[in-house]
């Protein structure tokens, strides 16, 4: 470049378009070589697989970058080095995902069967109920998770959707609306345990110190859900093109009917997705329930009275109780964890599916 800038050289010499390039097979070969070298040394010195992987990675990063530097020049080498680093983050991020999935499935699948879903833990010591001989199960926790989550959803969704409608359709530029939008954002960051403490403080002030019920858990979960629902709905309503609203206004349709008949149906897929994601988020919550919903060994269908077990709390108490049957409890905890993960992931999948199914076919 610099020689092109010489003032005495008005005729610019074209730089060659052809530049030496590493062959396409260079990255896999370099990777293989690094792995082989690290593997050999590692086996000799007795490193574990993790050590070998780390050393191979360092070798690849340094070696491959060096190779590129030698052949393609500095800029290309830097480019390749960062590409390697950036892709590495992906591999690193997959480690916990694969590990968690593997552990949950391998440790949890054994115990799962019809009994596991049909029985509760009443009278269960060790593996089985000492009276009936039936194995213990998670029926009570499933019932609790279902009831508490449903109740929370019933509270959070109307408030959340209406608030989003206010923000997008009515408030738009008012200071009040901007304050709410901002606080909703901040509210998404409220620690769940704080939501639990809030529900506890509120309800024990009203009903006395010993108050525990599923409803308390629902209140806490609703506090967590509302901002998620508001945000999701708000985003979706904003995505509804103003053109549609204007098309409706131009037909002489009043605003509220436009919202109900045009805007909401158009955004329905997105809202359903957001609500489902919010449900998925709270279905796995533990801390607030630990504080206000209590725990029990039998199924309780009444959210307003009596303690309720939920899947997350069941997992937690199973592993932390210890004692003679710690192993059996841990096995049930892994089983319940598998069930919980499947439920939450299915909800996430369902959310995407809903989004796909109900998304209006855009013209383009």
């Amino acid at each position, binding site marked *: 470049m610099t020689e092109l800038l010489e003032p005495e050289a008005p005729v610019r010499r074209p730089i060659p378009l052809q530049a030496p390039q590493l062959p396409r097979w260079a990255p896999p070969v370099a990777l293989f070589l690094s792995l082989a070298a690290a593997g050999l040394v590692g086996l000799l010195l007795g490193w574990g697989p993790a050590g070998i992987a780390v050393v191979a990675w360092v070798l690849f990063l340094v070696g491959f970058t060096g190779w590129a530097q030698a052949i393609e020049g500095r800029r290309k080498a830097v480019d390749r080095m960062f590409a390697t680093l950036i892709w590495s983050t992906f591999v690193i991020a997959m480690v916990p995902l694969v590990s968690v999935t593997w552990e949950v499935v391998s440790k949890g699948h054994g115990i799962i069967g019809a009994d596991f879903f049909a029985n509760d833990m009443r009278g269960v010591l060790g593996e089985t109920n000492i009276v009936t001989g039936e194995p213990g199960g998670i029926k009570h926790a499933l019932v609790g998770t279902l009831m508490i989550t449903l109740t929370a959803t019933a509270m959070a969704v109307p408030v959340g959707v209406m608030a989003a409608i206010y923000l997008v359709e009515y408030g738009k530029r008012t200071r009040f609306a901007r304050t709410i939008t901002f606080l909703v954002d901040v509210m998404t960051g409220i620690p769940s345990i704080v939501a639990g403490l809030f529900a506890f403080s509120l309800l024990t002030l009203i009903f006395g110190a010993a108050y525990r019920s599923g409803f308390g858990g629902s209140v806490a979960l609703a506090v967590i859900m509302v901002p998620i629902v508001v945000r999701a709905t708000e985003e979706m309503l904003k995505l509804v093109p103003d053109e549609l609203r204007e098309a409706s206004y131009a037909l002489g349709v009043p605003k509220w009917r436009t919202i109900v008949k045009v805007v909401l149906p158009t955004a329905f897929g997105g809202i359903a997705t957001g609500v489902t994601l919010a449900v998925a988020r709270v279905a796995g919550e533990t801390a607030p329930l630990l504080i206000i919903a209590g725990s029990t060994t*039998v199924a309780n269908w009444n959210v307003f009275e009596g303690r309720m077990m939920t899947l997350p709390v069941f997992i937690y108490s199973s592993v932390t*109780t210890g004692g*003679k049957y710690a192993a059996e409890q841990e096995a049930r905890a892994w089983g319940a964890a598998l069930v919980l993960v499947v439920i939450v992931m299915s909800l996430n999948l369902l959310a995407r599916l809903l989004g796909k199914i109900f998304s209006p076919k855009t013209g383009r």
Partner: protein
Amino acid sequence: EGDSGDGGDAADLANLSGEVAGGGASSQEAAQLAWIAGFTTVAPEATVTYDPVGSGGGRESFISGAFAFAGSDSYLTDEEGELTSATERCGGEAPIQIPNYISPIAIIHNVEGVDDLNLSPEALAGIFAGKITKWDDPAIAATNEGVSLPSAAIDAVHRSDESGTTENFTDYLDAVAATQWDAGVVETWPEEYGGQGAQGTSGVVDAVTSGTNSIGYADASQAGDLAVANIGVGEEFVAPTPDAAAKILEVSPPAEGASDTALIFDLDHTTAEAGTYPIVLTSYLIACQTYSGDEAAAGELAKGYLSYIVSAEGQQFGADEAGSAPLSDELSSQVQDVVEGITVE
């Protein structure tokens, strides 16, 4: 009423139904779970819940009437007016207080090459006070001839949460080795003494199991396969067996305020009685002498449940399933009499 030798009339119990709520000391949780399960074999229609909310929470909820009975690691005193309040709650009659759960606190350890460990009270206190930091310290070696102690750092594990186990353990240390242990009797571990903090009994067991050259204290019922130390009592070293633990109540004097219906003790940790294990956690049941009105049905159930717990069958079931020490025969019959005395109007 009849022959109450094994805890009430089986036929009576079989007719019990409904629900009763109790709760309190978490030390009893495993045993309570066992008893609740065992109770379903004799009273299939009855539902009992036990909330392990802690001794203080249990007493509080008992006084407020939310619990029909409570489990507590310590007996009621009037230091904060609890005894008076509890008496009020029970219609002016003093509440009954009976020991129902006795469990040795085992000194669990995980030291390479060391199975049998004898610890003098002083050595034990030194280790947990952070004054003895190596396994081959002379204070330990002196009582363990022939054992090859590693020259490794001691990983002393304690409860990081507030705990009745810690209270009983430090009560013991304070009584027998006050020179080494000068933090007094505490429920929450004094951090300046160092060591690894672990949450809950199971946390301590986990930490000792997965640690190296580690030692900790935990309810013996949860010690699992870990090696347990023998503790110096007089001239001998005693292992934490249920029998050895149960003995301590026999040698301990009744506490101030004990009565026919309040079988409460101040444990004599300094005993030199042969075969007595001195580090013991004793937990009591607290209930009313009379249940009436609204509470009658729950009281009936509570009485049935309590009588099951203190029956020989119940105590044995607790020992089998939760590793507690069954009450000695003498104490057992006293306790059963107290429960029999509960009336329901």
